[in-house]
């Protein structure tokens, strides 16, 4: 899995999936539409301000609430390459891995990194380096089977490779 590089966008604790993608937009599920409303009540017009590859840095219990997979889809489509948080709500965590968005548990990094710091992240090794501060953080390592899912590009291509015809993606 490749090393990711981008600027930090910092949010607080208990960022719920209604904030990530409000239910008023759940009458559609195409990724570009969801991206255009991602986190809009926190960062209006995020899509026009983000650089592809940027990294979301969050506090505790990130992604709590609804099971809507629209949330990680929106984060990935708007341009985030991964999420670093102190902890995650469990459904969001599974969903993110399943759609191929790396999510890293790294309490120290999540607490110390400031908004807009330039980061380099190696999801497979759980390493986070701030090129702005020079500090290095170690996140929790993902279990091998989750890394395999991420490497396949998500759960469906992973499973399709085993049971179905070749996945179109």
């Amino acid at each position, binding site marked *: 899995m490749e090393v990711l590089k981008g600027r930090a966008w910092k949010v607080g604790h208990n960022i719920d999936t209604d*904030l990530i993608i409000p*239910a008023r937009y759940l009458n559609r599920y195409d990724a570009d539409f969801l991206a255009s409303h991602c986190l809009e009540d926190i960062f209006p017009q995020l899509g026009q301000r983000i650089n592809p590859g940027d990294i979301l840095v969050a506090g505790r219990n990130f992604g*709590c609430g609804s099971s*809507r997979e*629209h949330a990680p889809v929106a984060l990935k489509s708007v341009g985030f390459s991964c999420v670093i948080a102190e902890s995650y709500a469990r459904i969001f965590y599974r969903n993110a891995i399943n759609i191929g968005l790396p999510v890293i548990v790294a309490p120290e990094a999540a607490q110390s990194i400031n908004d807009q710091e330039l980061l380099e992240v190696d999801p497979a090794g759980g390493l986070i380096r701030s090129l702005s501060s020079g500090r290095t953080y170690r996140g929790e390592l993902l279990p091998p*089977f989750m890394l395999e899912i991420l490497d396949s590009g998500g759960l469906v291509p992973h*499973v399709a490779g085993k*049971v179905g015809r070749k*996945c179109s993606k």
Partner: protein
Amino acid sequence: MGMTITEKILAAHAGKEWVSPGELINASLDLVLANDITGPMVVKEFEKIGVEKVFDRRKVVMIPDHFAPAKDIPSAQQCLEIREFSRVQGLEHYYEVGRNGIEHCFLPEQGLVVPGDVVIGADSHTCTYGALGAFSTGVGSTDLAVGMALGEIWFRVPESIKFVLYGKPKNRWVGGKDYILAIIGKIGVDGAQYKAMEFAGEAIEALSMDGRLTMANMAVEAGAKNGIIAPDEKTIEYVKVRAKRPWRVYTSDPDAAYAAVLEIDVTDLEPQVAFPHLPSNTKPVSASAGIKIDQVVIGSCTNGRWEDLVTAAHIIKGRKVHPEVRAIVIPGTQDIYLRAVREGLVETFIEAGAVVSTPTCGPCLGGYMGILAQGERAVSTTNRNFIGRMGHPDSEVYLAGPAVAAASAVLGRIASPEEVE
């Protein structure tokens, strides 16, 4: 060392004698469920996997309930997608508008979930069915699509926290919603993260099935993987007239291991109110009184059941909804709705000046049927009071049980039921 009820159900579905917390297992699925919001994404992912048919057409449930009856053209399109998929796949359990209800009210009512099941649903409140003694949890659309294709899913066996509720509430209006809000207030919105919440004790034994379903429903608001209550006579009474399949009762061993055991005395518990913007911001109603409100919603997968409507109707009967308040009552299923018509509850609500809607999740997630404008406040029997949950990002939601909601509707401010009696 024994096992908890959650561990036993998971072990049985993984073909193992024994599982312990932290272990990764593949569990077979008794039922998988999706709705009109998550379902279209499930279908899209399912079609990419490359299997032709779902693993068992009798074990897949699809219900349009969130934005149904369709609130706009895109929603109608989403409902159409799951309807078409269900038809093509020959699903036995597709339930159309007019013959369904809010999924987590409908499935237990219709006996589609039974004790001992393992159930996944592409909806976070799938944990509701733990009240029947099933292991039941919410997942995303991709997990559901894969579960629907393979008939199994991986789980990390959760640690369990046991909540022992004892005593008898002095306040007659205290119910399941107040118990679960008090618990979430105590442990926080991530207090049971990744864990099983097991509810037990004499106060749970005394609680109705409707009250138990409300409690298990909100386990996810404490971050839990599942909420669960061991079946007792009440459960079996409820299940035996409904079940479409045989069931199996599991209970925790006396020497089962728990991550924590919390004992909670409910004797002096007051009705609870969760203030914006987290379900854990709870206060007793006596410390909440006086906050002026614009809307009341009584319904949802949390509190749209028969007993909830009876409680609300009892308080509202012969009174009027406050002139500056809109009260919206949403029976959880068509059966509950019909009973409410036959037994005069609908008349009570309408005479009081409330709206009675067909079953839908609608306003709970800010979909439709009662969206809040900027600066408005609602008391709601639903499950989440996040920023913008029921409408404008500058609106506020106060969560409560049906008794407080009904009293607040009458008085136009957050109020305790005693104030109207």
